[in-house]
């Protein structure tokens, strides 16, 4: 077959409603070859999935993060582990990801940390990439703001194989009034690096989701650092004032303020 006749065959049918893509990020007007999706969009999907999968298996850049925190904020940093031993176990045993391993717990208890207002905790969660990319930029706004507001900070902890609720155990061991964990969210196809922030007043093991406040989708193109830091500062102030967190603590800060 000649090259010409191949190109004339035009197996690909484009959809004449491509203009509708302006209204949604959904994968519409992809066209068809036969009944199937054209190669280009098939590979684009695969690429997005690859980014999400790689994010699940990404690891915290602990040396860089802890050096930067110690240097920039003059705060001690402790590296901790949950009871999970590898990523496969992490995904199947959320119960183990909510508990510190005995060595890590002992390490914190031996510190006998004085009472502090806020314990900042970083956890890999389902996307360490999110923490590698977004934790420091957020803290660079949040830490000075917390200090300016007169709040005391516990040592910073960085926890590997962490679920959100591990902040309860860490916060309690550090004698903190509030535990604030920054953690990698479940990666989506359009955002493999979303960071979530969960705040708990009087953290202690056994608390459930209704006792936490959550900000999600902190990333470039999502919830901006400055807005996120502003909301967190507000929530921390209100949490300490009202002595509670969770469903009874309402977030009254406008998202666009």
């Amino acid at each position, binding site marked *: 077959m000649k090259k010409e006749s191949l190109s004339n065959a035009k197996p690909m049918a484009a959809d*004449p409603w491509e203009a509708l893509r302006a209204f949604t990020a959904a994968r519409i007007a992809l066209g068809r070859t036969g009944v199937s999706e054209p190669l280009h969009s098939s590979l684009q999907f695969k690429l997005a999935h690859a980014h999400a999968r790689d994010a699940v298996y990404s690891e915290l850049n602990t040396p860089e993060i802890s050096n930067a925190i110690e240097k920039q904020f003059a705060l001690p940093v402790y590296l901790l582990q949950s009871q999970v031993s590898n990523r496969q176990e992490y995904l199947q045993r959320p119960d183990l990801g909510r508990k510190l391993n005995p060595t890590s717990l002992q390490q914190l208890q031996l510190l006998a940390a004085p009472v502090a207002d806020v314990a900042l905790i970083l956890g890999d969660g389902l996307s360490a990439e999110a923490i590698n990319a977004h934790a420091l930029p957020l803290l660079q706004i949040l830490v000075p703001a917390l200090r300016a507001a007169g709040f005391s900070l516990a040592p910073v902890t960085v926890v590997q194989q962490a679920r959100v609720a591990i902040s309860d155990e860490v916060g309690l061991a550090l004698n903190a009034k509030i535990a604030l964990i920054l953690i990698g969210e479940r990666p989506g196809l359009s955002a493999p690096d979303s960071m979530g922030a969960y705040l708990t007043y009087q953290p202690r093991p056994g608390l459930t989701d209704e006792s936490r406040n959550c900000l999600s989708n902190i990333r470039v193109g999502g919830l901006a650092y400055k807005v996120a830091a502003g909301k967190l500062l507000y929530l921390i102030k209100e949490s300490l004032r009202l002595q509670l967190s969770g469903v009874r603590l309402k977030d009254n800060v406008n998202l666009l303020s």
Partner: protein
Amino acid sequence: MSYRYTIRQHTYTFPDLKVLLAKASPYRSGDVLAGLAALTYEERVAAQLTLADVPLQIFLNEALIPYEEDEVTRLIIDTHSATAFAPIRHFTVGEFRDWLLSDKADTLTLQQLGPGITPEMAAAVSKLMRNQDLIGVAQKCENITRFRNTIGLKGHLATRLQPNHPTDHPKGIAAVVLDGLLNGSGDAVIGINPASDHPATAALLLEMLDYVRQQYYIPTQSCILCHVTTTLELIEQHAPVDLVFQSIGGTEKANQSFGIHLALLQEAYEAALSLKRGTIGNNVMYFETGQGSALSANAHFDVDQQTCEARAYAVARHFKPHLVNSVVGFIGPEYLYNGKQIIRAALEDHFCAKIMGLPMGVDICYTNHADADQDDMDNLLTLLGVAGCNFIMGVPGADDIMLNYQSTSFHDALYIRKVLGLRPAPEFEEWLLQQGIINKSGQILPVSSSHPLLQQLA
């Protein structure tokens, strides 16, 4: 009552039916998380060998979750049909498996049998089956429902057009509806998962879908998948509600975690019936289920996750739904870890629901932290197509931008219809033909920019 089985020198003891069912279940991460799974390969097969000899009758006498404590158990026992059960009452679970696969269990026989099968019987027999057994028996079942079209006929496969949008933007949703219709999707239902549960938003979206449907005489139904209490409110406000949606679980406590109970579902069912919006039938409910929901709500009573799931089908069955589907891979890898587990669970769910008489579809799906990809979905789609699944999801490019998970695309539906010679619901097929979207042999056609749907909607 305890159950025993000896293999070589080792005697396995299973203290009750609940433990026996859990240990006989194929391996999945959720049962390990709950501490219910068999500890060795041999123990699992020992449990299956033991289960094979258990008479079906026992399931009517030994409740897994006490009758007094759980309204789902009461529903299962109180609505069991002794007449329908009669042909299989003398069987053990193992004999039941062999009979289901035999030619004696044909389509008509299976349709009559449904009300005699409890969820525990269905779950038990599924645990003795290989994947091909689950497909072979389900393929013989035909559970048909009607509202504005006919879903579930043999040789047909419908899709739920799922035009979700992260902010419920009507134009964004309309764009996806159009994309789906022009790709031949939307006969099961045009169903939106709203980003917010605000009644006003739901009402607006219902009005929009109803307008599109009426304007183009599309023989289908719409649904906003909000909480049943919200839908009840919408019905009171005279919003155009076709189908009432609700997520359901297999225990009273699991349903409590969804904010529902049987009386509330009954109220919604009656309210929807009273609207009389169906033209050729009155199946007005749409239920979604999924293995792991009872465990994640800590409401599983040490019953394995597949048996809990089958119990949800008893809840669904009571309200004669138009559609039921298991959102099989949505809940995450702590319940179904990888493609193998998702595929197995989906085939079990589809089989159990079908033999219980339900119009079962499957949301063939996974999340990004599960060890699965589109190849696994292709495998499952093909298996379910062969198994005679009533409907699947139609999501643009298989990527749901609101719920952040991957499902099946409009193209996937076209693929499975083509390779297996399956057709849309007959009334919808007629409409696709009229619109020039397909031709008489069912082949999808290219759409020109002058197509009436594009001219007026775009």
